[in-house]
């Protein structure tokens, strides 16, 4: 059942109050960097997103708002292009290219994209497509920050390789360590890989801005998606570099193995009515005592386990006994009892169970999205600022702000 209302008063409309209020950003990102532009826009920066005539190709990404009488709205785009001003520029016309140049001069930060884009349709305007050069822009405005998101960096043997999410995730090491023995290597659901490069782009922009504010010196920052992903693989390089120091037999490469964590001490188990991520850590003794309270500890307290060299066999035995024990438990009370005992178990929840999550409700986390006159409940802020709160402004259609933005930068159209 759609949970939706039509009351525009639910949307927070008003002056931005976020920590980046007053900061000016030109958003030329595609999927690979757009999450970073979103983070900065949601934090109160004035972010102008350029789109080609006919609209941002990312407005075609699903899911879409499916409602009789509503205009077509990409919910993908509404999320990732939140809090933007939308300006149409025609790069086939010299006026359009001049407008991009003028907007780059207006901006404190340009979030740019290098390389071919994966979305269908006309490409997103970039500095290169507008005939502009980042170094030349810096020559004119030395304090400018230009962040360039690319798949592999501007140089190197793979610089022209095409890498939409699935390919970036394969090359970047995500797929090899996700999936199970009886499935192919898997990508992550949705946009999780490019969320990393996007967030890194926001870090790059704000760190370079800090240096520019201190010294007046702007700069270019290159953000290769491939390296961003590779830096977020937790155990992958640890095993490669240090496997001879690790008490696991798998060697330099840990195979994909479903939910079983590299430490072998976290895994998803089947309970009655649902699945739950179970681990005896961090207080293994307390977990064994819990089993013992219920007579489910088997031979775990045997003397023989305490002999040197038996610890990992003991952990395997513990996990076996946990699996048998968990299979007898009703999921919901079991999860809450585990957490009440400070055991970091996690109930494997589908998205519809997140919609009514009591923690999100209590923290007032959900935020109304105003989508072309329809108000829809949507995700809230990924962080909470005590003094400069986050806000969600009404989403807009293609080119909504073209006239007002061109007026703001003093552009006079000459017919």
């Amino acid at each position, binding site marked *: 059942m759609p949970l939706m209302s039509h009351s525009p008063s639910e949307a927070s409309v008003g002056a931005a109050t976020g920590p980046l209020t007053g900061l000016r950003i030109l958003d030329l990102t595609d999927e690979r960097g757009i999450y970073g532009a979103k983070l900065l826009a949601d934090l109160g920066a004035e972010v102008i997103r350029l789109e080609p005539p006919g609209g941002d190709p990312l407005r075609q990404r*699903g899911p879409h708002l499916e409602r009789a009488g509503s205009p077509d709205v990409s919910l993908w785009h509404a999320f990732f292009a939140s809090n933007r001003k939308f300006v149409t520029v025609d790069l086939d016309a010299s006026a359009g290219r001049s407008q991009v140049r003028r907007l780059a001069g207006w901006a404190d930060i340009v979030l740019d994209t290098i390389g071919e884009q994966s*979305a269908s349709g006309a490409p997103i305007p970039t500095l290169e497509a507008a005939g502009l050069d980042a170094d030349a822009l810096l020559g004119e405005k030395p304090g400018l920050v230009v962040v360039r998101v690319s798949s592999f960096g501007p140089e190197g043997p793979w610089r022209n390789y095409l890498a939409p999410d699935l390919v970036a995730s394969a090359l970047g090491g995500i797929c090899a360590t996700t999936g199970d023995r009886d499935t192919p290597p898997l990508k992550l659901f949705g946009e999780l890989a490019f969320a990393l490069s996007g967030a890194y782009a926001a870090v790059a922009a704000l760190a370079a801005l800090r240096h520019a504010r201190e010294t007046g010196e702007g700069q270019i920052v290159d953000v290769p998606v491939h*390296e961003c992903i590779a830096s977020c693989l937790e155990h992958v390089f640890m095993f490669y570099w240090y496997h001879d120091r690790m008490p696991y037999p798998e060697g*330099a490469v840990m195979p994909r193995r479903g939910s079983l964590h*590299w430490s072998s001490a976290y895994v998803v188990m089947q309970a009655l009515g649902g699945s739950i991520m179970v681990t005896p850590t961090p207080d293994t003794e307390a977990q064994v005592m819990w089993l013992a309270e219920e007579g489910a500890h088997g031979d775990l307290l045997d003397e023989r386990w305490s002999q040197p060299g038996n610890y990992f066999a003991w952990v395997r035995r513990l996990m076996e006994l946990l699996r048998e024990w968990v299979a007898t438990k009703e999921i919901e009370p079991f999860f809450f009892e585990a957490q009440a005992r400070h055991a970091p178990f996690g109930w494997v929840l589908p998205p519809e169970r997140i919609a009514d999550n009591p923690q999100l409700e209590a923290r007032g986390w959900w935020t109304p999205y105003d989508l072309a006159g329809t108000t829809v409940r949507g995700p809230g802020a990924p962080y909470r600022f005590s003094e400069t709160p986050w806000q969600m402004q009404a989403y807009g259609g293609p080119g909504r702000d073209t006239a007002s933005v061109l007026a703001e930068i003093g552009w006079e159209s000459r017919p």
Partner: protein
Amino acid sequence: LTGPLEGIRVLDFSHVLAGPFATRLFGDMGADVVKVMPAFRAVGSAGPPHPYHAMWNRNKRALSLDMSTPDGQDIGRRLAEKADVVVDNFAAGVLIRLGIGYEEVSVTNPGVIYLQMSGMGEGGPWSGFVTYAPTIHALAGLTYLTAVPDREDIGIGFSYNDHASGLHGAVAVLAALDARLRTGRGQRIDVSQFETGVNLAGPTLLDLFANGRAARPVANRLPYDDAAPHGVYPCAGAKSDAIQDERWVAIACMKEDQWLALRRVMGEPAWAAELKFASSTARVANLEALDRLVAGWTRTQLAEEVMERCQQAGVPAGVVQNGADMAEADPQLRHSSFLMELDETVPGLPRTFADRLPLHFHATPANVYRRPRLVGEDNATVMSDWLGLPASEVDRLAAEGTLT
């Protein structure tokens, strides 16, 4: 050569991964990060020379301050008064109990920024929950959605959300630093790692609320858009039967011309010209047959050759690289020297390695990598640099056990 955050002082009470990943970013970018790590906390994977500790704690200084004593809390408070940023991922309220909560410290250090990265955020019925990344993945829907259909026991194969939370924490701190220039004041930032994770399913949640449609796992397909082939396919060349030696290639035809180009790369097999594969909609409708036929071709090829021939023809394709592939064969990572060995090793480890910050700052290159430090190794310099304490005073604190 320096980084863009030169001169920023970070007092780091964080442990495990999410917090230390945020402060690793600050340290890599030139901030002075002081990690508070008393001996009794630096056990197992939480301290040197454990490889897990080595992964997340380069470019930080190590201070072995014991905050459980009044003298330790006094030193902690004086350090917080000198800090631009204080980071913790304790449960909410721990720093307040130690007498160095934001309300207290901001009286004398109004510019200070507190980043608290707890599992569930402050307040709410779940705020006391104990969580690690696998817990958050499960509760936030990420485990459920990253899977093949009808399996709930797969999920993400590494602690993704810890990295994502660290990155969000870093963005928040840098934004608050910029706001401070305008307002003259710092503030508190409350990061709920759970909310960070839920937020990343944004379009899926909007789809749920707007259209009443609950997402289900789709393996390697795109959940909302027609693109096919869009999968991971088995290849020849495995050097053993072990699962980690399997060879796979990802192929993603995002546009019609990429499918036509893939047909040419495959040698225009007759099946590819059939009507049931003539459009992306038709290919998605006949996906099982399509995937089987594509796999029939890839099985006879080396993954590297499929990638190279596809990319030459303009088809997105990539080898499913594992850690060894990336370290030994990836020419792009080699080109940028992304993986490296540090000049100085952590005592207790034969060699120490690092992956570089993936941000290439042209003016402030951020290319200094100092090895992770031992417990208390920087006590004297930190006490001198931050508090102006002479060596004799540091010796006294050590003798008393305030510095462990």
